[in-house]
């Protein structure tokens, strides 16, 4: 796990929206958080980082989707564990930079749970994070 100080951008009803450059920096300290990060959403992200942390929602980068849609593979895994999750287009935000995901990101993919909360393709990451915060409160 990498060490990183997360930026809290919103708090409501005991839940927070936090920004991280890397999903690998997420820990149990994020169990009440919607994590907006600069990582891809590949297959390892859900089981290795997001699920063990207990985070309540996640928005990452689609990494250009790539071979066998590997860049968004974790959205489905998170769906199976009841976690809303979405990805921003790699051309909309700088991968590796969480603040860019949050400030500039445009949603390109979302799991069913996120969609039920009102997250749609084309929405800004900021608005999507707000929808998740409302949806899980």
């Amino acid at each position, binding site marked *: 796990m990498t060490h990183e100080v997360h930026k809290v951008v919103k708090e409501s009803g005991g839940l927070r929206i936090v920004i991280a450059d890397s999903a690998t920096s997420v820990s149990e300290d994020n169990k009440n958080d919607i994590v907006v990060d600069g990582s891809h959403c590949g297959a*390892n992200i859900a089981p290795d980082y997001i699920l063990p942390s207990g985070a309540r929602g996640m928005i990452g980068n689609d990494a250009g989707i790539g071979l066998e849609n590997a860049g968004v593979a974790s959205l489905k895994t998170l769906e199976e564990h009841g976690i809303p999750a979405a990805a921003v287009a790699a051309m909309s935000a700088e991968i590796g930079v969480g603040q*860019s995901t949050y400030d500039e990101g445009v949603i390109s993919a979302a799991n069913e749970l996120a969609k039920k909360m009102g997250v749609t393709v084309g929405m800004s990451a900021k608005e999507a994070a707000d929808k998740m915060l409302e949806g899980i409160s």
Partner: protein
Amino acid sequence: MSDKISVKEAGGRKIVLADSAAAMDESTKGDVFVDGSHCGINVGEMTLDTGAGAMIGNDAGMGKNDAGIAGLKFLDKHGIPAAAVSAMSAKIGNGRSTYEQGKISVVNEAARKLGVSAGMSAKEAADRLLESLVKSGK
């Protein structure tokens, strides 16, 4: 893949595979680290901080401002050879896929000088990097 595995050793150095660049640490100092991460700026910093000898990651489709390969240029400034495989050639987040399926799409100058070029398989690139690092003894 949990954490990391070594697939080759020569002259006290290794080629190490991991799904995430976050698995780099003291034990991979001087090694050729092949991972499933993007090559963004934060991954460049992780590579430098942990002292890996060389790094191969995923270009993440390059993306906005070529952020997916920003770490390559950063590492070049520090003389560390690094390269990325095309996101359409290997599964991001999967280090074994980078190594076994990856086709190099971008190399930094330090890697180019060691004979790594675009179109090469990641495996061949890793071999060249290992060989060169062992020879140079740096």
